[in-house]
């Protein structure tokens, strides 16, 4: 009884409040979906807080990026989209774009130009991998190892992960085919340039899984970026794969006895999409936010809190020192020259086409 009264009072109050807000043409509250942890914190510091201060908009965080594709599909089916801006990787963004779940973005009219007037489409350049995707950072998936548990010769190559004789002990890998299968082929002697051609064939896929079979007993399979740092901190694994920003935080901020193997790092892009089908005032707000959050200075600012490289060419010279530690962030970026030379570029088109098939095959192999 009391509750009905509460709800009715609430309803009456909100009707009054609702009509008061009806005048403005942009929504005053927005939900931004991201990855949580240090990454969300860097976005909070570099984008959300300045934007809220400037416009008075309340930004709500929803750390659901890991399930973004499934949730957006469900929301679309139910006709109730509660997200305004969503942070996703390049491959899911392409998938969402193909399914019509993300809005098409025109970089030159909807995104800010560089300070020197270079249009956004040139400033982002090759990073614009999908017409719905607004790139934000370049990150990489790479390996970290416990300096005190790997013996006298530290691992230097990604293939040391597959060498259980030289480096006995557990290693952690993501329980997804992306990156894992590429590394397996690379260490089975396939040249970097031929990896995706090999992976397209049935024999190539089996070859990758056969290589993984050789270390299967020594692998702890993880599903989230926070698992490997925890396992490394516990000493439960001697080496493991995770995002370079997580390893940076583990090494520099948490001071753990861990070092990185940049070799074979797989670079990927992360950025924003705006869900299709938002009401006009919410869409206007989302676009306004995107215009602000992906300008040259903002992208460079994010690197003060996390070691991911800004996606704009014009942001790179502006990257400075870590906000709290005062470390020069340049060398910790996956895009730093000495790291870049050992990198491996992910083929988004391949994964957009083969992801579902290989996921099924990989999970079946895992369960064997």
């Amino acid at each position, binding site marked *: 009884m009391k509750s009905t009264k*509460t709800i009715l009072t609430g309803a009456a109050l909100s*009707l009054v*409040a609702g009509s008061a807000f009806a005048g403005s043409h942009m929504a005053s509250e927005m*939900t931004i979906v991201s990855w*949580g942890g240090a990454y969300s914190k860097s976005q909070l510091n570099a984008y959300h807080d300045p934007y809220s201060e400037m416009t008075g908009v309340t930004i709500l965080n929803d750390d659901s990026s890991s399930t973004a594709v499934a949730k957006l599909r469900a929301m679309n089916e139910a006709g109730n989209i509660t997200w305004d801006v969503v942070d996703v990787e390049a491959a899911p963004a392409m998938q969402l774009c193909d399914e019509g779940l993300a809005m098409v973005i025109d970089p030159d009219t909807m995104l800010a130009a560089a300070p020197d007037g270079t249009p956004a489409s040139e400033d982002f350049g090759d990073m614009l991998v999908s017409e719905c995707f607004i790139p934000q950072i370049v990150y990489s998936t790479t390996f970290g190892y416990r300096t005190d548990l790997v013996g006298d010769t530290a691992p230097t190559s990604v293939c040391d992960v597959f060498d259980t004789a030289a480096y006995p002990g557990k290693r952690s890998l993501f329980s997804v085919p992306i990156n894992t299968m590429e590394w397996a082929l690379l260490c089975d002697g396939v040249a970097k340039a031929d990896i995706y051609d090999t992976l397209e064939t049935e024999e190539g896929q089996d070859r990758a899984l056969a290589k993984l079979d050789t270390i299967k007993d020594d692998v702890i399979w993880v599903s989230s*970026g*926070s698992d490997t740092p925890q396992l490394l*901190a*516990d000493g439960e694994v001697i080496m493991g794969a995770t995002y370079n920003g997580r390893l940076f935080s583990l090494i520099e901020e948490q001071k753990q006895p861990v070092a990185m193997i940049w070799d074979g790092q797989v670079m990927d892009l992360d950025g924003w999409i705006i869900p299709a089908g938002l009401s006009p005032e919410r869409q206007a707000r989302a676009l306004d936010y995107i215009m602000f959050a992906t300008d040259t200075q903002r992208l460079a600012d994010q690197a003060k809190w996390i070691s991911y490289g800004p996606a704009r060419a014009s942001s790179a010279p502006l990257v400075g020192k870590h906000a709290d530690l005062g470390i020069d962030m340049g060398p910790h970026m996956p895009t730093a020259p000495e790291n870049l030379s050992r990198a491996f570029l992910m083929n988004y088109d391949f994964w957009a086409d083969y992801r579902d098939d290989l996921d099924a095959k990989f999970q079946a192999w895992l369960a064997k």
Partner: protein
Amino acid sequence: MAALTVISRKPLSFVLSVTALLGALLGVLMGMSMGNAPLGLIAGAAITSAVAYLGTSVIPEERTARYGLIAATLIAGLYFFGLVGGLTGALWGWFLGWFIFWLYEGRYRARLHPYLTPGQVLWHFTFRIICGLIFAFLIIPIIVVMPLSFNAQDFFTFTPEMLRFDPAGYSLKHYNDFFTNNEWQRSFKNSLIIAPIATLVSVSLGTLAAIGLSQSHVPFKRAIMAILISPMIVPLIISATGMFFFYAGLGKFLEYQLGLDKNLVGYMKVVLAHAVLGIPFVIITVTATLVGFDNSLTRAAANMGANPVTTFFRVQMPLILPGVISGGLFAFITSFDEVVVIMFVGSASQKTLPWQMFTGLREQISPTILAVATILVALSIVLLTTLELLRRRSEKLRGMSPS
């Protein structure tokens, strides 16, 4: 039954072999943690049986032997592991001394029936050990997170500093994070808004349903009951999927047809969904209380001119109140702990504590979760204590009521 049995000294061979067994067990555990189990086994057995022999046969007086043993283990612990090691060692020394003489003097039989065979005595103590292990199995996972929540590092790991009880290894920063971090505060506030309102809704509806179902003239009672408690039986994920689509439609209607505020609609959806999950608990507890309710009381009230509403609030409600309250507590905990339905039905502005904990666990390494868990465990203990006190009161009341 106490002290029925005349106790007598036991043969040394018996004492030595049992203490050796205990020593071997402890030795294996120690040895395993140091990487050499067989050595631990032999050393443990040898040391404890030697101590038992010394204590019982060489040193003439029990008191001297036991204090001597405590002193020896204290010094050994201090020497090898520092202050904490010394204290732990002294505790083990006390226990070992007590155990040896408990066996040697035959004290273990003092409280047992004199006619029990050795096999029955053995089972008597084995049974108690098994019970102790079951308790430990249930409670240790909950206890173990508590010290970790005071970790000075950002990992779920016992650091060497923590194991040494070095104050530098401990900090309140995760509690501080919980009380200052916006996300945690917002989700805590949401939980405190959603859970009580959902509880109120489920208590009112559940109590009414239980009273209705207890009337003799209601047809299809069992079928109605089955439908009402189905949210408790159907797997949560299935309810959640159904609710997602149902409440999305309802939400759109409320928001666009009736023009209600988006956030208010969000809260209403979550509150209703949680109320549905809580109702079965209220129905079950209230129905159970109603079994002992004497319907002649309502007839007596009617006889004296009270209308049904007055009868309900003045006569029936006070008597079934304990059942209503414990049902309400269950409903509250259901909503407060719920993580599946909220992720389907809620949006970011309704993020509750369990949701925040879930994403925190998945996406970041933060012992703040452990700090929150510790706070929630404390809260649950308070709630369950209340529940138990109410149950006792209800029993007392039922004992007094005519039946």
